């Protein structure tokens, strides 16, 4: 697999949305290509930042509102 091939599939690979054969080929390429490995690590970290963006303390008024709803059940 060439670097161009890997970069085309990289984000789908990181999303675990490529088939097993393609994933294995990309794994093998990343083990030996520092450029593509760096790119993969960068995109992975950016994705982790996105995932972390959902962590947000709920305001007290929402907690009180939810508690009020739950108390009525």
């Amino acid at each position, binding site marked *: 697999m060439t670097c161009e091939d890997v970069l085309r599939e990289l*984000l*789908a690979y990181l*999303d*675990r*949305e490529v088939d097993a054969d393609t994933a294995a080929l990309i794994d093998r390429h990343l083990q030996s290509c520092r450029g593509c490995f*760096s*790119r993969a690590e*960068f*995109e992975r*970290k*950016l*994705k982790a*930042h*996105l*995932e*972390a*963006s*959902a*962590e*947000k*303390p*709920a*305001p007290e*008024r*929402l*907690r009180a*509102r*939810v*508690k009020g*709803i*739950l108390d009525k*059940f």
Partner: protein
Amino acid sequence: MDERDRRWFADEVERLTDRLYGTALRLTRNTEDAEDLVAETVVRAWARIGELRDRQAFEAWIRRILNNSFVSEWRHRRACPEVALAASSLDDEGDSFSLFEQLHQPFLLWWSNPEETAIANLLREDMDRALDGLPEAHRVVVVLVDVQGYSYPEAAEVLGVPVGTVRSRLNRARAQLQRALWRHAQEAGLVPGRRE
């Protein structure tokens, strides 16, 4: 459902409130709407609790209710949902922007690892602002796949679109997101010059 079930449900909701709120905020971009969405989700979840087969899957199940509530409300609010979901006309800068390529300038590599530095300096607010700035159709797909970890078929089912549409929206959304982060980094003086 007895008192023990109710107590279990309440404990789970309280445990997940922060995460539900954070996701709702990413979807709605508005604290009041996010709070309404969470409250509505809790009510709907309780009404449908009999459908939950596996308590271990409660978080995934209630997040699905939250996402579906948002998407159905979003469609309802649109006068022309087909036009709104097209979305791509809002971005005429293409879908091939790469933040990594912008940062990976050879002269920078002499004394630093610019990609590592950029990631390390990425503030929570930078990401929030970039995500909130995406067109709605693109933001929602990023929130489903990147923020909540939905698979492409799962996101397609929530959105009522083909998997191919999820894939193409995701590509465009990510390019737009990275372009926004790059612009912010330039404006903040975190990266040298303009490469574009």
